[in-house]
């Protein structure tokens, strides 16, 4: 009876206890994708603190541990920072502090990517990337670079001071419960910053710019299409004119040029397919794909002012926050202005008081794959130089949010890490990547920041190994130059565009000596330019890469060269116009041939309308242009109608491996088709296997008909209304892959071959990430990037530059004194 009376209140207690316990659990730890609700939403310290950034920084005094003397930071109204420090060390401290203040989450994400720690915050979805990075070894490289760096040297000092500045801000954020929004939503705290983290971010950039899987693609093509046909269609030297900037004469200094051995490595293996499959499942930023960047400089003989002009626009993944943080810096030893990468204490592109420079990617072959011979009878060993050798092994524990820690063993041969578990008996593939070798890039950049003439600039670049970059140069005195600095690996023998035998016969024996790498200084033309094209002519005595991705097809280079050659008395306005140019050079070559092929043919009414549009088209990929739409669809169809029958006949697995698919992104195929259309219209490639004979004209007409049909279905029956922007957009994706934090998609102009490049179709996610113009006539510079100085999506500085960038406008890069005079600027005083 008594027990019965107690039952109801007891159940009441149990029910309330369970409810409260569940509520506390979800509030304290989160559930599934939900963050811990309590700390996330509590008003004083939760996500609401991000709102404070809606107001831009106020004039204030900040005390920072590690500062030696007082420093000052002035912000322009658009967030660009101007630093004034009393010592060089304090300058790097202040840059670290600023980066952490405005880009801490981005910095943490970048170091996590290279250090195999993404899974720790986002869960098992990131495990393939973490495992890939652990194998590739950016962290190992960074550790080796740091170990080799003299502690008393300038670079180590800069990295240490920078880390102190970052950590000062992290401590401040922690003490004030003011960590950036995404730390709170993902429920974690940043660990202290170290110089190695900065070196890992340097490695991230190298990886994005020059780690490729092209030799694996070559291996599959060689197995399916046959080696001879593969090398005809993906030749070492391009089928077209790549418009190299260094015409020679060339010197061969110390190493023998590569002698390709036809058919040396046609054998494919399951290991190649496995690795290609594994790479195909990685996010786009992990491997280098496509083309990027323009830069040029014009000597005073061709400018209105009589002094040089320099322009640069690196094309990278366009993200929010942007990869760049703009600053101007002054200390006793340094005066520079330009864009830095959060995580690194230097600017990469910009100017000092005497010289200006900008970068494009060289895109020489920097990744070599080796087929390592293994055997069950020799576990953990590989065969090299006549003997079985023990592989070095490293073990990694990769923490995984919401799952067990992943344990990974990485095996290394003399060439580099094995990139995938050797599931296919008897063969494993290792990779030798130039970015995996220690490179004193930080030291090189510090020397560039101090350089006052070409000799000092060039000497600094002797230290630059990876990623190989075209450094364009212009100085106050009137000189211009271009140097393609970096490692160019030379193998003993063999075909480096294919996976090489790992037995020692095809090992790398060295690199091209610095004095023999592509470079020019004050050429007779009075201008220099690069756009990822093959920088040298056919007589260059060294192997540097092939037409398949290693170099761009030269259309942007041709457009730039044509413009610079044609015009004299060039001005800043001309540089702006060229950077924002949307003329498609290839269209200019091919459309007249297409019109010729169509003349006299019987066409339907809609095809006649489309033809009329093309006849009136100026070749510009403008957002409102219907001609651009018809051209692009035609060219895509032309490529497919030419090559797809071959791919199908020879069973090229393009449906399995996206990198083998036919499209405008296949640099070599585009060059082939251009060359055949212009110079060899009866090339056998136009006739598919076991089909009736076709010429370029036949295929062009069929492709045009197909393009009109496709566009009619997609965009309606009026060709004059087929605006390029209807099928082509640009998007700036969120670095954290959160759709609501990105920008676009928005109808956009350009294509991969226009100077104002848009890489990707139908949505371009890469393009000019920063546009920079230096005018030595006035000593002034202009710059703009499609993003903002703050990573906080609530901040007014999150998207500051996008509208200006989109409209082709620029911001003047003023100095600190001018910034302080500017209305709306604010100044921080940093005190020890």
């Amino acid at each position, binding site marked *: 009876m*008594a027990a019965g*009376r*107690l039952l*109801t*209140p*007891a159940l*009441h*207690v149990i*029910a*309330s*206890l369970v*409810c*409260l316990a569940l*509520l*506390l659990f979800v*509030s*304290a730890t989160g559930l599934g*994708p*939900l963050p811990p*609700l*309590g*700390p996330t*939403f*509590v*008003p*004083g*310290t*939760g*996500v*609401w603190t*991000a*709102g*404070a950034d*809606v*107001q831009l920084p106020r004039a204030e005094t900040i005390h920072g541990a590690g500062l030696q003397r007082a420093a000052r930071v002035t912000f322009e109204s658009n967030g660009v920072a101007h630093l004034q420090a009393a010592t060089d060390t304090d300058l790097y401290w202040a840059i670290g502090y600023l980066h952490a203040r405005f880009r801490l989450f981005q910095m943490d994400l970048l170091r996590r990517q290279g250090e195999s720690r993404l899974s720790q915050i986002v869960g098992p979805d990131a495990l393939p990337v973490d495992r890939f990075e652990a194998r590739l070894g950016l962290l190992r490289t960074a550790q080796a670079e740091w170990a080799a760096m003299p502690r008393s040297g300038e670079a180590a000092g800069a990295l240490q001071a920078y880390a102190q500045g970052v950590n000062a801000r992290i401590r401040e954020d922690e003490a004030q*419960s003011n960590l950036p*929004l*995404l730390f709170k*939503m993902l429920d974690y705290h940043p660990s202290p910053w170290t110089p190695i983290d900065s070196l890992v971010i340097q490695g991230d950039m190298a990886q994005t710019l020059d780690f490729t899987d092209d030799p694996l693609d070559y291996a599959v093509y060689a197995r399916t299409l046959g080696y001879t046909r593969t090398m005809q269609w993906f030749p070492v030297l391009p089928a077209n004119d790549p418009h190299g900037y260094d015409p020679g004469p060339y010197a061969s200094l110390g190493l023998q040029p590569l002698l390709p051995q036809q058919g040396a490595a046609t054998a494919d293996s399951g290991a190649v397919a496995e690795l290609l499959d594994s790479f195909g499942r990685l996010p786009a930023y992990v491997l280098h794909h496509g083309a990027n960047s323009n830069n040029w400089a014009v000597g005073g003989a061709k400018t209105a002012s009589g002094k040089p002009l320099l322009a640069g626009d690196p094309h990278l993944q366009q993200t929010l926050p942007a990869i760049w943080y703009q600053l101007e810096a002054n200390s006793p030893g340094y005066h520079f202005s330009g864009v830095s990468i959060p995580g690194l204490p230097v600017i990469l592109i910009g100017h000092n008081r005497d010289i200006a420079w900008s970068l494009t990617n060289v895109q020489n072959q920097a990744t070599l794959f080796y087929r390592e011979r293994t055997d069950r009878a020799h576990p953990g060993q590989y065969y090299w130089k006549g003997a079985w050798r023990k592989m070095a092994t490293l073990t990694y524990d990769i923490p995984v949010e919401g799952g067990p820690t992943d344990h990974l063993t990485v095996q290394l041969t003399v060439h580099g890490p094995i990139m995938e578990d050797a599931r296919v008996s008897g063969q494993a593939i290792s990779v030798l990547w130039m970015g995996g070798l220690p490179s004193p890039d930080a030291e090189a950049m510090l020397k560039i920041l101090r350089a006052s003439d070409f000799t000092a600039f060039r000497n600094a670049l002797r230290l630059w190994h990876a990623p190989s970059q075209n450094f364009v140069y212009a100085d106050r005195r009137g000189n211009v130059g271009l140097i393609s600095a970096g490692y160019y690996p030379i193998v003993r023998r063999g075909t480096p565009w294919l996976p090489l035998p790992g037995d020692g016969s095809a090992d790398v024996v060295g690199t091209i000596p610095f004095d023999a790498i592509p470079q020019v200084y004050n050429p007779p033309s009075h201008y220099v330019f690069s756009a990822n094209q093959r920088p040298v002519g056919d007589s260059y005595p060294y192997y540097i890469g092939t037409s398949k991705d290693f170099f761009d097809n030269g259309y942007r280079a041709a457009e730039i060269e044509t413009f610079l050659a044609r015009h004299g008395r060039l001005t800043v306005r001309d540089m702006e116009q060229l950077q924002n140019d949307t003329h498609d050079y290839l269209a200019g070559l091919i459309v007249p041939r297409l019109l010729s092929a169509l003349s006299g043919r019987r066409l339907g009414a809609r095809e006649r309308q489309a033809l009329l549009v093309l006849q009136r088209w100026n070749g510009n990929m403008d957002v409102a242009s219907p001609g651009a739409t018809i051209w692009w669809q035609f060219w895509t169809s032309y490529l497919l109608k030419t090559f797809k029958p071959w791919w199908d006949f020879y069973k090229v697995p393009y449906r399995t491996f996206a990198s083998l698919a036919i499209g405008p992104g296949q640099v070599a195929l585009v060059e082939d088709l251009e060359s055949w259309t212009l110079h060899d219209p009866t090339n056998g490639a136009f006739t598919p296997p076991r089909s009736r004979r076709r010429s370029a004209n036949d295929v062009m007409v069929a492709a045009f008909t197909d393009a009109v049909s496709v566009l009619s279905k997609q965009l309606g029956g009026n060709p004059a209304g087929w605006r390029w922007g209807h099928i082509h957009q640009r998007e700036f994706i969120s670095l954290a892959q*959160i*759709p*609501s*934090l990105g920008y676009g998609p928005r109808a956009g102009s350009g294509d991969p071959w226009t100077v104002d490049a848009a890489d990707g179709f139908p949505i371009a996610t890469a393009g000019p990430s920063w546009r920079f113009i230096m005018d030595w006539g006035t000593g002034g510079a202009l710059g703009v990037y499609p993003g903002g100085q703050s990573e906080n*999506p*609530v901040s007014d500085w999150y998207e500051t530059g996008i509208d200006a960038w989109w409209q082709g406008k620029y911001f003047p890069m003023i100095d600190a004194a001018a910034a302080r005079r500017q209305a709306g600027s604010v100044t921080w005083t940093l005190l020890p």
Partner: protein
Amino acid sequence: MKLGAMRPAPVVLVAGVAIVWTGAVFGLWWIPVAVGLAAGMLVRPGKLAVLISLVAGAAGWAGPLAWQSLSVDILRTASVVSGIMGAGSNGWTIVLFSVFLAALLCGAGAWLSIAVGGLVRALRATSGTARSGRSKARTR
């Protein structure tokens, strides 16, 4: 004199709001639970205690948010957070959710407190009945 009569509900409400508000400012997100537990002990009847707790929790977090909104656009923050969580771009969703969370924490604390109080009273009543029964038996 009843305990509830010594600490009238309005006093508990005002004190509760003040404590939850102060805790919220310092990031002590669990304070509403403690306030709810206390309110459940101090206020009778239980339904009134729950009501007071819900109001105290909600007001204790709504207050600092309203205060912040005087200087910053909290709806902008809320709409960004809502977008990140995939809940659309309406910032009010996140503001109301935050206030609701505090009310829930406070109310759940009160519920437990009231339930425990009920169990204690039932135990006392049961033991009182048993003592009374034993006393009657000894008398006989």
